[in-house]
């Protein structure tokens, strides 16, 4: 597929030629009927009403007679095709009127058809244009794409092309249609009177030439406006992204004023635009009104002089009435054309990138899998400011194993790692993979054998599973052949017409074979294996317990989980741990839940029944008012408030004690002080808002946790009885806002853990949480549900950029994504930075083990010597300073002898590989004993230094 054309019309014509011609044909086909419908009223008036057809006083005529008369050169004979119908005047009038009505319908139908076709074609072209733009976006080199602001690109592809699509339908049809119409009228006038024709033509010419010139400034302003509003979109995107920094430095005022001034300049551009626009409009109207003035004066003068008859003058004026609208619309069209082409060119400019060359296929993927060989020859990378990042690096890798690109951060190893993975594309020198220059490979073919994990994981707002299997979405599914269901056939037909891919996204894209699995279930299993390798499996289990299932979708699972409740309870009893969990019982108060939870005894769906909204909810307050429960709760709230005020007196605002232990924020204290004062005063002047606040306080109270001794048995009873009333009397409109707990049903709104436990872990017993978790896990394992929970964990939605995960979890997801496709080569570029040191080392050890027989290339600052390596390439300040083949020899440190080593290294590593012993890393088995001469020297150096110390 070629690049998007620079010229708007060429692009539109190239991609919608057929449809444009079709619409044009429809327009032409509609014209005769249109003119007939214009002409018909004349017949109705003259022939039917005035009776001109009923000549000679006859009562009936032969209506709608069709006679074919041959031209003279064919003999001039007449053939009567249809003899006509006998009609009276009245029925003739009705017949003609009906005919007119039918013509109106047909014309309306044509109009509908034309508009629909234009609209559909515009949408198709819009779809194609957007798709082409996105496609071109993927052509940018990694270095270039960093310069594009995401919000701006989105604004361009999404919003700015919209008017272009609307215009596409009119691009060719409108000028053709209006042009013919105007031309006809002009010709008609010319036929009537040459002078008037010339006058009309001249004014049209003025309109057509001067106004576009005046509009040029308008277009320039339009262009400025487009750029300014695109930048505004970019800035808004930046504000969203940089909100932590804005908050941290309290620069919101600055940001606001910056946005304000941008909006201001947008306003002034628009103001200029309006000034121009209305000036042009004024001129336009003036010219339109000027013409009749000419016609009346000049035409009238000619008529008086007898060079034009009155009938002609009237006809000309009537014809002229048909002239300005199309001309005006043509000018509008021209205006739009200008506008749209400017916009189009503007956008295309931003996406100006050449299609990458097709590139070579990987010649020998199997050989790479068996024995990857990488040769880096005189590699230099220079950053956009001209600073060299690495210079003249030469080394080679001949075998599978663990290669570490060592050196302090910024020394160049990570740049080489990025270049190896083709994350950088601008370099001098060459990198060859089994003899093929990787910069000449077809895009995507490197990814088939290599995976790269960088310091910043790129995650999508989807589930953990989706993020991991992303690397497997590379096998376009086979398209099923005909017969296709109608919907699918239409979908595909439309995709084809807009140059979009025919394949729909979905799970069919997963390359199970690459992951070494048969189906989705096995793939899940494999993902969990990988997470175990990365130390992320426990997290997945926990996320699974916190996850929710839709029992409606999976009724069986919901029921099985309900059955597990009993199994877990039994096991707790067997282990003598029953007291660790207080089960939910509809008839009993659960002392380890809050008062609010006890009252609702269910999981709120949405905000209506959220705990902080309960007191002010009219239905709830009606229920708790009934037997004086509200008064009891308010009393508890009051006691709580008093105790909080007493305890927190003197604790300064902002103290973390508030956040974690108080029922109220420091800023609430004065308010509650007033409420307490009002309540304690003789006059009992507390308001209903006070009461709500106090009840709200009480709802968060848990006796065994807070231990303030505020709950007595009658209150508990009252809460339990209010609970059942709340459930029984709930109005239909509120029923969907809460899902009540039911010992025999799965609660969709609650997480899996709450459903399994169906109770609360008791406060005040040491290690209760851990013990219950262990019991639950073993019960799940015995019940065969452990994998189910893990799978639910994989369904966890990680949020935008994975923000709902911790950094180390994000890194684990990214690494699993790399591992799941079983690459022959894995490049880690500071990909373990999110893990604490010991964990990073352990993961690296396991990865190194996993990659036995494959190639693991790591540039992990701080972990250079953490695990044994087969080859260590050391960098310093962008230069290669040592190649060390194998063993756990201490790292080369210090700058002693650096230049000498540099030179030595240079010499050795530029020599042809594999020829001389010790030049390249050639035999794994002899490594631990036989270090390179360099390593030995460093060893001695290290010993000497130690002695000196």
């Amino acid at each position, binding site marked *: 597929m070629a690049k998007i054309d620079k010229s708007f019309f060429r692009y539109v014509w190239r991609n919608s030629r057929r449809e444009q011609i079709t619409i044009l044909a429809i327009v032409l086909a509609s014209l005769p009927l249109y003119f007939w419908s214009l002409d018909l009223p004349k017949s109705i008036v003259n022939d039917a009403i005035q009776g001109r057809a009923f000549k000679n006083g006859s009562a009936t005529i032969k209506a709608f007679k069709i006679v074919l008369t041959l031209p003279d050169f064919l003999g001039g004979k007449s053939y009567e095709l249809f003899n006509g119908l006998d009609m009276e005047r009245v029925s003739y009038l009705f017949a003609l009127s009906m005919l007119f009505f039918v013509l109106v319908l047909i014309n309306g139908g044509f109009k509908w058809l034309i508009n629909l076709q234009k609209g559909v074609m515009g949408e198709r072209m819009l779809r194609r244009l957007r798709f082409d733009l996105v496609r071109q976006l993927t052509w940018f080199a990694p270095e270039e794409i960093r310069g594009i602001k995401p919000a701006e690109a989105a604004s361009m592809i999404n919003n700015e092309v919209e008017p272009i699509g609307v215009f596409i339908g009119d691009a060719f049809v409108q000028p053709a249609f209006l042009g013919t119409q105007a031309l006809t009228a002009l010709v008609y006038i010319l036929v009537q009177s040459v002078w008037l024709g010339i006058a009309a033509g001249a004014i049209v010419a003025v309109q057509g030439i001067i106004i576009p010139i005046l509009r040029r400034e308008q277009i320039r302003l339009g262009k400025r406006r487009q750029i300014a509003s695109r930048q505004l979109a970019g800035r808004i995107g930046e504000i969203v992204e940089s909100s932590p920094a804005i908050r941290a430095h309290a620069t919101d005022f600055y940001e606001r004023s910056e946005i304000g001034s941008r909006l201001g300049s947008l306003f002034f551009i628009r103001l200029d635009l309006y000034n121009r626009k209305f000036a042009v409009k004024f001129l336009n109207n003036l010219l339109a009104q000027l013409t009749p003035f000419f016609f009346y004066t000049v035409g009238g003068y000619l008529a008086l002089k007898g060079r034009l008859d009155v009938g002609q003058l009237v006809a000309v004026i009537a014809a002229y009435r048909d002239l300005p609208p199309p001309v005006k619309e043509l000018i509008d069209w021209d205006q739009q054309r200008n506008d749209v082409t400017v916009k189009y060119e503007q956008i295309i400019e931003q996406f100006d990138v050449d299609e990458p060359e097709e590139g070579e296929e990987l010649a020998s993927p199997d050989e790479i899998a068996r024995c990857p060989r990488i040769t880096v020859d005189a590699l230099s990378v220079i950053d956009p400011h001209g600073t060299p990042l690495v210079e003249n690096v030469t080394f080679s890798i001949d075998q599978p194993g663990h290669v570490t690109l060592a050196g302090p951060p910024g020394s160049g190893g990570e740049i080489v790692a990025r270049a190896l993975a083709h994350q950088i594309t601008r370099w001098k020198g060459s990198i060859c993979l089994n003899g093929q220059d990787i910069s000449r490979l077809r895009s995507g073919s490197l990814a088939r054998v290599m995976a790269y994990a960088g310091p910043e994981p790129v995650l999508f707002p989807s589930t953990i599973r989706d993020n991991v299997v992303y690397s497997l979405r590379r096998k376009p599914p086979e398209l099923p052949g005909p017969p296709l269901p109608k919907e699918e056939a239409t979908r595909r037909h439309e995709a084809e017409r807009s140059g979009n891919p025919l394949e729909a996204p979905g799970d069919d894209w997963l390359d199970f074979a690459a992951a070494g699995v048969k189906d989705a279930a096995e793939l899940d299993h494999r993902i969990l294996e990988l997470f175990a390798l990365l130390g992320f499996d426990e997290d997945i289990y926990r996320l699974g317990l916190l996850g929710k299932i839709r029992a409606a979708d999976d009724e069986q699972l919901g029921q099985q989980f309900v059955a597990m409740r009993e199994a877990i309870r039994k096991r707790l009893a067997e282990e003598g741990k029953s007291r660790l969990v207080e089960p939910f019982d509809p008839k009993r108060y659960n002392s380890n839940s809050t008062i609010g939870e006890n009252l609702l005894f269910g999981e709120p769906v949405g905000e209506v029944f959220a705990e902080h909204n309960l007191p002010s909810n009219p239905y709830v307050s009606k229920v708790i008012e009934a037997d004086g429960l509200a008064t009891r709760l308010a009393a508890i709230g009051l006691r709580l408030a008093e105790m909080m005020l007493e305890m927190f007196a*003197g604790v300064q605002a902002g103290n973390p004690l508030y956040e974690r232990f108080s029922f109220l924020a420091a800023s609430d204290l004065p308010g509650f002080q007033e409420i307490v004062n009002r309540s304690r005063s003789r006059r009992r002047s507390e308001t209903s808002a006070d009461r709500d606040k106090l009840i709200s306080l009480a709802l968060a109270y848990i006796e065994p946790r*807070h231990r303030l001794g505020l709950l007595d048995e009658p209150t508990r009873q009252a809460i339990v009885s209010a609970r059942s009333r709340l459930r029984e009397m709930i109005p239909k409109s509120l029923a969907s806002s809460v899902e009540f707990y039911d010992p025999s049903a799965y609660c969709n709104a609650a997480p899996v853990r709450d459903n399994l436990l169906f109770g609360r872990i008791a406060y005040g017993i040491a290690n209760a949480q851990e013990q219950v978790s262990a019991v639950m896990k073993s019960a799940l394992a015995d019940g065969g549900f452990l994998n189910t929970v893990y799978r639910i964990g994989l369904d966890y939605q990680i949020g935008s950029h994975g923000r709902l995960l911790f950094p180390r979890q994000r890194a684990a997801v990214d690494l699993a994504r790399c591992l799941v496709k079983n690459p022959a080569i894995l490049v880690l570029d500071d990909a373990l930075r999110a893990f604490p040191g010991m964990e990073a080392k352990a993961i690296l050890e396991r990865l190194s083990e996993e990659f036995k027989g494959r190639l693991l290339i790591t540039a992990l600052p701080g972990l250079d010597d953490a695990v044994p390596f087969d080859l260590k390439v050391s960098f310093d300040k962008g230069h290669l300073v040592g190649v060390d083949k194998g063993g756990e020899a201490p790292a080369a440190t210090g700058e002693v002898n650096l230049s000498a080593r540099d030179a030595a290294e240079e010499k050795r590593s530029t020599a042809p590989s594999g020829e001389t012993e010790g030049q390249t890393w050639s035999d794994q088995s002899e490594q631990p004993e036989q270090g390179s001469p360099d390593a030995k020297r460093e060893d001695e150096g290290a010993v000497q230094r130690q002695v000196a110390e």
Partner: protein
Amino acid sequence: MTIESEVQSLRQVSMFRDIDPAKLKLLAFTSDRLSYDKGDILFHQHEISDSTYVIVEGKVEVWLSAGNERIKVTELGEGAMVGEMGVLIDQPRSATIVAGSHVVALKIGREIFFDLLRQFPQMSLAVMRDLARRLDATNAKLLAVPR
């Protein structure tokens, strides 16, 4: 068991003796009240010091291990505070604490403990006094060791 009774227990702790009851209530409120069965471990030697414990009920045993050897150093009863040393100097636990009977303890998180010390100078003083007393006792023991 309510805060009020915990406050009574806390008043038995030497370092809290001089502290205003309202503040003791705050201390009790912000800490977790945990119960242990005999033989349960409060914490292990070498673990991260994340909290201090005040024994409210029962007694605990202090065990030290070096290599394969384990020695019971002492027993502490109601009102004793354990684990504060490690928290103060940010070092791992120096001993293992085992419940010697049914034990109820207040677990005061590291941050809360520091907060309380910062908020209430009299508490800092009490902690200092307690540590000094212990150092004094250790010195006395050292002197008593026959050379």
